[in-house]
């Protein structure tokens, strides 16, 4: 009996040895291998999916290039994981360029870039190049979503009946403040200039959940926050978070008979899950920028830069040229569609510049004097929400 057990165990041991000799990763074809760190799921219908599709776009345009991605890179989803560790792994697998898609990865990317001077890094939404904290193999890229958010705010204010618009914010930092402010400016413009209604009948409420997406037990639950918005009379909810809760809840409330809408964020296909509740979505189109970066790394012409690219005003929805776009939703009516087109023309020609003074911060201090136009840096490093908005600034 014992000998039979032993022979059985021996064969198991052999099987395990065979397993340990399984194929490792192959790397180093002719094309470039680039790694992508996504903070959320690759199919989140939001922020991370937009990046994922941008990477796929590069693979399609440059045969031979290969993306290795890892999603849900955040300590709540992957306990014990840190950015430098994942980067080590991607570099082992042959990645010559690493794209990190979250503000949350800022410190980790900086550390990883120091450890791998031969690898290029792009930190999305960061400013380490501006602040001088980046080593020279680390660059920053961001889209001028301010325009997209102005359009989002615009369609919201054109559609609202109650005059109460809500903004589902992620965490509070300079980026999220400037995006919420942009949405407010677009909405305020539509309400007062197009609909010619008094500003006193308009309200814009911002609630922050504490992170880019829901982490049960840690952040506020975005589903509850949106329900609360709608139950307190807000009939259009703008999403500023990575995922689509605002649209889902608005759609559920519509089925209960409420006349409410949402504007999701980040990903061109966000409206698909509930088109009837969707006024449109301001989205990032990372493909063309990624393509340029990958090409420049391949031919060694890559240079460190802090890049903040806007829409291609000839056609903001051109998927080969425009970094930021706005996809109209099925719920936007024809008349408002025409107003939106005129608004986009105004932004494009520069006739409309909503970051023009007089604008005051929430605490009453001056952001822009009358007639003053904000510089890029003033917008990037926006200190507070503006007067007229409800919600926390820090």
């Amino acid at each position, binding site marked *: 009996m014992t000998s039979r057990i032993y022979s059985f165990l021996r064969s*198991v041991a052999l099987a395990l040895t065979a*397993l340990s000799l*399984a194929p490792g990763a192959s790397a180093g074809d002719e094309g470039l291998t680039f790694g992508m760190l996504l903070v959320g799921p690759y199919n989140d219908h939001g922020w991370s999916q937009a990046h994922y599709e941008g990477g796929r776009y590069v693979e399609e345009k440059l045969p031979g290039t290969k993306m290795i991605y890892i999603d849900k890179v955040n300590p709540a989803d992957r*306990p*014990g994981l840190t950015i430098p*560790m994942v980067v080590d792994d991607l570099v*082992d697998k042959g990645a010559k360029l690493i794209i990190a898609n979250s503000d949350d990865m800022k*410190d980790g990317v900086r550390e990883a870039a120091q450890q791998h001077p031969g690898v290029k890094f792009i930190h999305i939404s960061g400013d380490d190049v501006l602040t001088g904290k980046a080593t020279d193999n680390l660059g920053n890229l961001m889209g001028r979503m301010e325009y997209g958010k102005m359009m989002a705010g615009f369609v919201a204010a054109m559609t609202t009946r109650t005059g109460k618009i809500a903004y589902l914010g992620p965490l509070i930092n300079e980026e999220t403040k400037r995006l919420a402010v942009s949405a407010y400016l677009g909405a305020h413009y539509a309400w007062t200039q197009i609909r010619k209604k008094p500003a006193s009948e308009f309200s814009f409420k911002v609630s922050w959940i504490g992170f880019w997406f829901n982490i049960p037990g840690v952040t506020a639950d975005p589903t509850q926050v949106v329900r609360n918005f709608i139950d307190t009379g807000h009939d259009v909810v703008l999403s500023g978070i990575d995922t689509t809760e605002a649209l889902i809840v608005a759609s559920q409330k519509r089925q209960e008979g409420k006349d409410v809408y949402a504007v999701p964020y980040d990903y061109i296909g966000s409206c698909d899950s509930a088109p009837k509740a969707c006024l449109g979505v301001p989205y990032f189109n990372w493909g063309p920028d990624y393509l340029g970066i990958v090409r420049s790394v391949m031919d060694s012409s890559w240079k460190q830069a802090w890049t903040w690219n806007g829409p291609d005003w000839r056609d903001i929805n051109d998927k080969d040229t425009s970094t930021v776009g706005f996809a109209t939703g099925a719920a936007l009516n024809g008349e408002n569609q025409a107003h939106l087109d005129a608004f986009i023309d105004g932004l494009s020609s520069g006739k409309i510049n909503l970051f023009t003074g007089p604008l005051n911060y929430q605490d009453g201090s001056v952001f822009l004097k009358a007639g003053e136009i904000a510089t890029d840096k003033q917008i990037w490093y926006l200190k507070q929400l503006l007067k007229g908005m409800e919600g926390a600034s820090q």
Partner: protein
Amino acid sequence: MSRINRYLADTLLILVIVVVFTSLLLLLVGASPHEAFGHLISGSFGSWSKFSRVLNVWIPLTLCSIGLLYAFRAGLWNIGVEGQVVLGAIGTVGVLRLGIDSGYPMVTLFLAMLAAAALGGGWALVAGWLKIRGGVHEIFAGLGLNFVAMGIVLWLIFGPWKRPGIASMSGTEVFPRELWFPTLEGWRVSPYAIGIAILLILATSWILNHSRFGLNLKAVGHNPRAVVLFGLSPQRYLLIAIIISGALAGLAGGLQVSGIYHRLIPAISSGYGYLGLLVVMLANFRLLPIPFIALFFAALNVGSIQLPMMMQLDSSLSGVIQGACVLSALLVFGIRHLRSRGPGN
């Protein structure tokens, strides 16, 4: 068969059950078990950098597990490890914050580790005190205290310790380099942390198996009523055991801060408290297997990142494997226990 042989046979049997079960599961979702196990192994032991990541998980997991052993010896279920890890992390961050620009980084780090152990032990003492003075079962006290600890950490991150101008659950500001646990060039794990873990394993081995305290603790765990006859105070032993348990968990939390994350984050414990319970159960509540099982679990945790990266599989497979290990271990131990008592043996 000798005891060691029997234990090895049991272990292999458990592994076989787990491998078969996991393979079936993989085949069910249309993935190659061969490839998946290959990635798990090469992803954890394939290079020094990967193995050092495994050690980074192994250290806190082992500390939590050996800490739990003290509590189990005294007959206590210290479910509160998770909270004790968190409190240890809070203690460390508190001291490190004071020590920024102090000019004495090593002293600061040392004090931070002491604070981690003290806060972890103190938090465990609360559970112990509730049991002895309030008659609250330590499982419920521990669970409750875990939630309270989580509440405290969220409050600190979003409130008093938040980054200037930012309100985010991402975590607090990263500490300057000199307050990171020192490591060597090309290492991703601190040799000091490895040293601490090994020292504490050896110390625990001596304390539990060879010291008078260890013997008494065992006696208290087996029969708290009888030990009174020998002049021992079971309550005192229970409290000391749970304090040691908490101190070790707290130390694990301190190392999570100073060695891995260099800041406070909501998920600072990485769930090692709960994972440690599985390790100890799988070890059949004995010290010797703990470092090895912890290494196995750590390797699974680290290696499983390869599954989504290389095979687009969900990495929760590592959790499935860990769970299957514990269940099949309980099964194997249970069957052996029944057979050793049954007829014809």
